[in-house]
């Protein structure tokens, strides 16, 4: 199978400091690729470049054979890229259901005039989006919170809501920025299953996650960043044996675990 998303030598600097430098890797359909690294390694910056929020200074992002480097996020969404955020980006004053429906924006939006005068075409589009959104809320276990204001939900629920909203686009590539952060063990496992399920349906998944157990469990391929540069990549077993990785990242955690034990 050929790659769906190809990252080629991406780099960006802020105020003369290289935040990310010359990072390359590829993601195939149905594959889960995780990006790991210590805090400040440039993982979220990398995500922001891939998803069009930052414009990279060097390198290319190729999606499905098309160069989409620095393309506006809403145009990337149209090409099948979807994402969640490390620091939740939920529409607080909307209901849970409405949040999920916005994920269907591309399918449900039409003529604004039809919307203003509540024409049948507008109502039909909105109805279809709502039906889809309700199915998705069921899939992530939030169907009973549908009518609640999103701002009142627990952190774990909001994480799942964000994934639901991202899935509503019917993405080919899904970028998940710390989907399990702040979640308890049960919630983490649920998210685990959800991600595996989505990948099994052929979606290419790019994951940033701090929960190393989760990363080792579900990733097909791991890319390790440190100080903005890729220091290793490979399957979980290979990466966890890599001395540079242990020194930069796993080592720190192993020491911590050792101290705990």
């Amino acid at each position, binding site marked *: 199978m050929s790659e769906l998303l190809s990252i080629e030598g991406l780099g960006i600097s802020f105020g003369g400091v290289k935040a990310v430098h010359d990072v390359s890797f590829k993601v195939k359909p149905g594959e889960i690729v995780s990006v790991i690294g210590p805090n400040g390694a440039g993982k979220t910056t990398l995500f922001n470049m891939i*998803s*069009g*929020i930052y414009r990279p200074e060097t390198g290319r992002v190729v999606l499905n054979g098309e160069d989409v480097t620095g393309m*506006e*996020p*809403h145009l*990337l*969404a*149209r090409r099948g890229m*979807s*994402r969640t*955020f490390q620091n939740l*980006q*939920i*529409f*607080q*004053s*909307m209901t849970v259901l*409405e949040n999920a*429906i*916005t*994920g269907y*924006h*591309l399918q*449900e*939006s*039409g003529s*604004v005039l039809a*919307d*203003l*005068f*509540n024409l049948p075409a*507008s109502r039909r*589009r*909105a109805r279809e*989006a709502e039906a889809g959104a309700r199915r998705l809320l069921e899939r992530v276990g939030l169907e009973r919170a549908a009518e609640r204001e999103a701002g009142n939900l627990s952190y774990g629920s909001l994480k799942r809501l964000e994934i639901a*909203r*991202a899935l*509503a*686009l019917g993405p080919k590539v899904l970028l998940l920025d710390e989907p399990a952060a702040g979640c308890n063990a049960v919630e983490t496992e649920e998210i685990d299953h959800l991600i595996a399920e989505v990948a099994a349906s052929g979606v290419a998944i790019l994951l940033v996650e701090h929960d190393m157990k989760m990363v080792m469990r579900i990733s097909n391929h791991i890319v390790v960043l440190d100080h903005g540069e890729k220091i290793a990549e490979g399957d979980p077993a290979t990466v966890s044996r890599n001395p540079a990785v242990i020194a930069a990242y796993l080592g720190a955690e192993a020491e911590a675990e050792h101290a705990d034990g």
Partner: protein
Amino acid sequence: MRISPKTATLLVLAVLVALSPFFFPSNFYYRIGSLMFVNAIAVIGIVILTGYAGQISLGHAGFAGIGAYACALAPVHLGLHPGIAVFLGAAISGVLAWMVGRPILRLKGYYLGVATLGFGILVSMILTNERDLTRGPDGIDVPDLGLRALVNGLGLNLSNGQFWYFFSGICMILGAWIALNLFNSPAGRALRALHGSEVAARTVGVDVARMKLQAFVISAVYASISGSLLALQNRFVSPDIAGFMHSIEMVTMAVLGGVGSVLGAVIGAGILTLLPQVLTIFAEYEQLVLGLVMMLVMIFLREGLLPSILKRFRGRDE
């Protein structure tokens, strides 16, 4: 049966328009009532722009001025019926809003506020200085809409004040209906989404610049129609209508009532139209009392009157 918030709002407004006259102490209040409704139309436009989409305009009176002067000038110079002139004014306002908003709304931040401020001042200056066309600061007469004669021809016997009261009331309810349609529609959801989190809205595919522009154009059309109706019922218009104070008034009314709520917009417009009439007893302290009321609302009822009150009621229920 459960009634939707939309139906509830429209019912409240219909009852308000239909029953208020029974409580009027004098016929003068028809005039105040119709002023409230005309102001409310502009403020509903602000609710769409600021309450839904989170964008700020400080020059919407410019569009009201265009709508008003269209009704004064198009019948004389183009031979158009004043009723058609309302739509011409709305179309001009919409196109101008599109031209002004297009470059600005691509930028982030409060550029729109500054740019619209400039736009409003520009319109007001043109209306004041182009004496050959607009007769300058003295103002200009506006022809009769002719609708009252038509309605009374059907057997009704409405005074001028009564006609404008009910006609403005119906226009306001229509404006509220359209704004409430938008709220729960795909486009309205996209506007509220970009208000909530612009970055998230973009990642679900919302073309943020385009949606903001649409909201700006729609709200400009509301302001324009409000200005047209004001000119038509006064049978006169002066450049004051496009002045900075009028722009500020619109925003203040929206904020006072609750900027996210259509019903709040009507309440805000109602209070700020009525208050100066009541406050005449304070004579020269009128502005002072008005300012004080605004400050107290902003301090104690930050979300605006209606949302704050509703929240308090709901809080008690639980």
